[in-house]
Structure formats: C-alpha cells, structure tokens
C-alpha cells in the first residue's frame, strides 16, 4: 500500500515535471519561438484560438508568469490542449485520437513481441551456455542494437520496396483504400506494417536478448539453481521456474525504463515510413512549428512510459514476493 502510494506520488511528480518542461522550454529559448509561430499562423486561426495560444506560450500577454502557469496547468488538466495550427481547424485531441491506434498497434505490439521473443532467446542462449547460439549472440546483437532505426528503415525500403517491389513503404494503408473491418483492408494494413515492424523488431530485440542472457548467466550461478539440479528437477522447470523467473525480475523494470528509448525509435520509424502515428505527427508538428500539437504529443508519450512502468511494477509485485512484503 505504502509502496503504491509512493509510486503514485512519483508518477504525479514526473507528469508535473513534463508539464513544466513544456511550459518553461519555449519561454527559455532565445527569442521565444512561439512569437514566430503565432505571427505565422495569424491569418488562418480564429482569434479565440489564438488567444488561448498566447496564454499557453506567454506571448502578447501581460499576465504574470505564475498566473500563466496555473492557467496552463488548468487547461492541461481539463483536456484543453488547444487547436493544431498546421491542421486547423482539427483540434490537437482529434489528431491524437486518430494517431493512437496506429502507434499502439504497430509500436505496442512490436515492442512486446520483441521483449517476449528477445527474452526467450536470451533464456535459451544462456541455458545452452557454450552452444552455437550462445557464442554468436553477443557480437551479432551488440551490432544490431546500435543500428539507427531510421537507417535500417531506409535500407529495408531500398531492398523490399524499391528493388523487389514486394512490400509497400509508405503510410499505414493504401491511400485509396476505404478503412473498414474487412479482410482486404486488414490484409492491406498488415502489409503496410511489415517493414516498419521489422525495423523496430530488428533494432530492439538485441537489447532484450543480451540483457536477459547476461542476467540469466548470473542467475544460473546462484545456489538455488544448483539446488534445483540437485533435486533432480526436469531441465525445463529449472530453466523457467528457478532461473528465468528470477532473472527476469530486474529486466521488467529495465523494460519499462527503456521504453522511452524505444518510443524514440518508433518516432523515427514512423517518420521514415510515413506511418501516421504519434511519432509521425510529432515530427510533422516540429517541422511545421505546430507547438501545441508537439507539446501534447510529448505529454502523451510521457504518460505512455509512466503507464508502462506502472504495469511493470504490478508484474514485478506479482512475480516477486519480496516486493509484495516490502510494500
């Protein structure tokens, strides 16, 4: 209980820090960039929306900084993220709502797949210590884990789209297709997802494999694993119930913590493939100087990471009686 309260406090604090960064950053930058933005969009946006923006970014207003800050926090808390400037009159909320399913589908599924698959390969590799898999794993996956996402995306496009014409490389579905719940459309979506998913999978899986392999090797040297062998337990049980179950505990937290990195990669991948998810819109907003959209997306990503950490906390508590007792 106490543990849960402390975690909640931490989440609120982090969220507040992210919000405050959003508020402070544009005001800190040399020659407040919001001024340029607002003058750029002056003609195309309703005066009312413009006024909200002025408060949000602290330009053309004589309110003291602190009251600007509280107005801003209030707006954020009540879901008033403002309008998107580049996609006007669409609101920021609408754009996000359209983008989330695509990112959740592509990035969420791929990330979980990479974690599960990578962890599994790591377990087996460490278990078969000295085998072929174990000996080729480290150098290969050290290198795959430093390949820039966007570059791998480009190379896959070159191979499978430009050279082989095997797969589409643009968008989340064929632009003339009508979205709907039918086989043709679903097949289309899957085809479009293959290359970006492969990009994310290849670049992230190495980390999970190596991390799991290394903790697993450390765990395999533990007395309780030796004890399990002495008890004559079946190998599968020793590997999963005694070694892997203990080895995975530190990695669960590691997984949630590094989700920020993974999402960074997802942004680039969506950008390269023009896959219209959260990351794509974030970069579009940055390039169009659409700061309200950019800020809201940054917040969204922060919340996503926090939720992931929360889930990993719960998973750890389920798997580890010691954390349960500590709370």
């Amino acid at each position, binding site marked *: 209980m106490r543990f849960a309260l402390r975690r909640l406090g931490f989440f609120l*604090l982090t969220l507040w820090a992210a919000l405050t960064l959003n508020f402070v*950053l544009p005001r800190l930058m040399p020659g407040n960039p919001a001024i340029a933005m607002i003058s750029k969009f002056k003609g195309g946006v309703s005066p009312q929306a413009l006024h909200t923006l002025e408060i949000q970014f602290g330009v053309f207003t004589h309110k003291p900084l602190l009251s600007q800050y509280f107005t801003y926090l209030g707006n954020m808390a009540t879901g008033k993220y403002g309008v998107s400037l580049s996609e006007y009159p669409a609101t920021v909320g609408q754009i996000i709502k359209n983008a989330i399913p695509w990112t959740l589908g592509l990035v969420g599924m791929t990330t979980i797949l990479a974690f599960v698959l990578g962890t599994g390969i790591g377990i087996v590799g460490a278990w078969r210590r000295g085998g072929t898999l174990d000996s080729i794993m480290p150098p290969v996956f050290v290198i795959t884990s*430093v*390949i820039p996402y*966007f*570059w791998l995306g*480009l190379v896959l496009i070159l191979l499978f789209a430009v050279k082989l014409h095997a797969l589409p490389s643009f968008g989340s579905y064929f632009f003339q297709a009508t979205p709907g719940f039918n086989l043709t459309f679903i097949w289309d979506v899957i085809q479009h997802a293959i290359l970006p998913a492969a990009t994310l999978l290849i670049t992230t*899986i190495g980390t999970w494999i190596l991390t799991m392999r290394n903790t697993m090797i*450390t765990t395999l040297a533990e007395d309780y694993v030796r004890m399990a062998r002495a008890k004559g337990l079946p190998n599968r049980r020793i590997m999963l119930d005694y070694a892997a179950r203990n080895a995975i505990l530190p990695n669960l937290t590691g997984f949630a913590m*590094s989700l920020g990195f993974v999402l960074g990669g997802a942004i680039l991948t969506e950008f390269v493939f023009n896959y219209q998810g959260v990351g794509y819109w974030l970069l579009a907003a940055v390039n169009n100087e659409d700061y309200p959209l950019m800020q809201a997306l940054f917040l969204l990503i922060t919340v996503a990471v926090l939720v992931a950490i929360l889930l990993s906390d719960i998973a750890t508590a389920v798997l580890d009686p010691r954390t349960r007792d500590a709370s």
Partner: protein
Amino acid sequence: MAFLIPSTATDAATPLELAELPELDQGPGRRQSPAIRALRRMGKAIRSNRKATWGAGLLLVFFLLALFPGLIARDDPSAIVYKASLGPSLHHLLGTTGLGQDMFAQIIWGTRPVLEIAFGVGIASTVIAMLIGVAAAYLGGFWDAVLNLLTDVLLVIPLFPLLIVIAGYLHNAGTLVMILVITFTGWSYTARQLRSQALSLRKRDFLEAARVRGERPIYIIVVEIIPTMTSLIVASFLTNALYAVLFSTSLQFIGLGDPSQVSWGTMLYNAENNEAFQTGQALWIIAPGLCIVALGAAFALLNYAFDEIGNPALRPIKRGRRREQAPRRSRVRERA
C-alpha cells in the same frame, strides 16, 4: 538505437567455485600508481578480449580520420564542384551526391563533428553523473533523496521526444548546442548506476576506516571513492558516447541539426530530401549509415567487452578444449 543495459556492471557476481579459489597470478604492476595500473590492466584486457580489440580498433580508425581528414580526402566536402549523382570511380571513391559534392570527402570530414559530439557528451555526462551519483550516495539522507528523485524523474521522461521538442524550438543545432542538449537530457541513466555503485562502496569498511582515521569528506570522495569506480566510469563514458552518436545523427537526419555542417546525419538528411533511392543513389544513404553503425558498434563492443572483463561468467566458453586430454571427461559440463 536500442540500448545495451549493462545489467551486471554494478555487482559482478563471482561463482561459488571461483570465490573459493585463491586468486591467480596478478601480473606486474607492483610499483606503479593506481591510474597507470588501471590503464595497463585496461590495455591488457582490450588485447585479450576480441570484442574489445575490434571496438578499440574501429574507434582508433575513426579517431585518426577525425584528426587528419585532409590527409585522406583532399576534396572540399561541401564544395559543389562536380557533376551530380556520379557513380563510384577512382576519382570519387563513393561517387558524388545528388548536389554534386564528393561523397568520400563528406564521409571523411563528417567524422569529426560526430566524434566531437560523442566525446563531448561522453565526458560532460559522465562528469555530471559522477558528481550527482557519488554526492547522492555519499551525502545520503535528504540530499540523496532529492538527487535521486531528480535522476529518476529525468530517467523516466522519454529522452528522444524531449530532445526533439528542445531541438524543435532551437532550430539548426550546431555541435555545441547538440552536446549541451544531449548532455542535459542524458546524464541520468549513468548517474543512477554510479550512485548504486557508490552506495555499495559506502558500506565497504575501507571508507569507514578512512573516516575513522579522520579524513575529510572531500578527500574521501576524490581519493578513496572515485579511483575505485574507474571501470564503471569508463562504462558510463562509453554508454553516453554511444547514445550521443545515435541521437545526434537522428536529430540531424530529421532536419533538426545544422544543415550547413558536413556530418553523417546531415548527409542522410540531404539524401532523403533528394530522394536518393529513387535516383539510384543508394550509396548516399548506405555509406553514412554504415559509418554510424560502425562507430556505434565501436562504443558498444567496448562497453560489452568491459562488462565481460568485469564479470568472467559472461565470457564466451570455449568448448571441448580438453576433449583429447581427458577421455574420462565428466558430462557435467553439458547440462541442458
């Protein structure tokens, strides 16, 4: 751009059997200062570990390229003086860009800014991480709580999106701005590691012994604690440098870098904008990308190798080394 998490860096486990054995020959180093001894050990370790040798070799090559680019590539990398989109030839080892610059010259000259950022971020982040991590661990109590909370919050806020946001406000980030921004956002991960090692050191009796002896806190931190953390400090540098290479090139690629600067990331940005694939200019994308991978691999291999050196259990096992000598070999080695 996924990250290698050195899971065992902080507490290297020694298998039971090893702990029971007396240490093997420790080699020379009796009459040297701790720093030289540490360097010698590191040199020896690099030579003995194949991953480390590769990493160090690659890094050395890039280092030389960055120091003396003019000796290798005589062309001015940004001068638009050639016909656009030439294929590789003796004159243009990698051909020319779609704008008419010599690609080989761009690759060679592009090494320097990446390395500057890598080393700048690596050193600056490590120094910050060391100060904050060790201070938190040594001071304990209130200050530890505050510094630790700061570290954790920064750790959880997604770094790359934050970088994009900051760079988006800044426009055209040059080398120095890149170093500052990446350092500001990125020191927290290694600070956490350094703190946890310093915390485990704090419980070690030799620090208590120094305190009982009457040493001042600053002496204890600088002379007694920091030298014992050398390997983690090196690991921290490597992690931060790697992260700087990947993040700075990514920012440049999406157009948030300084477009007038010749670097691998801006090459990729230009290539993408000029639809290099469609115009048959695959090299324009492949060459700088491979360089990023190679430089990143250099840091990552070194980092992984140091992890292996610190924790012998992770090292590759050479199978069947004794097969011919010991016919009555036990089957225990082949568990699984």
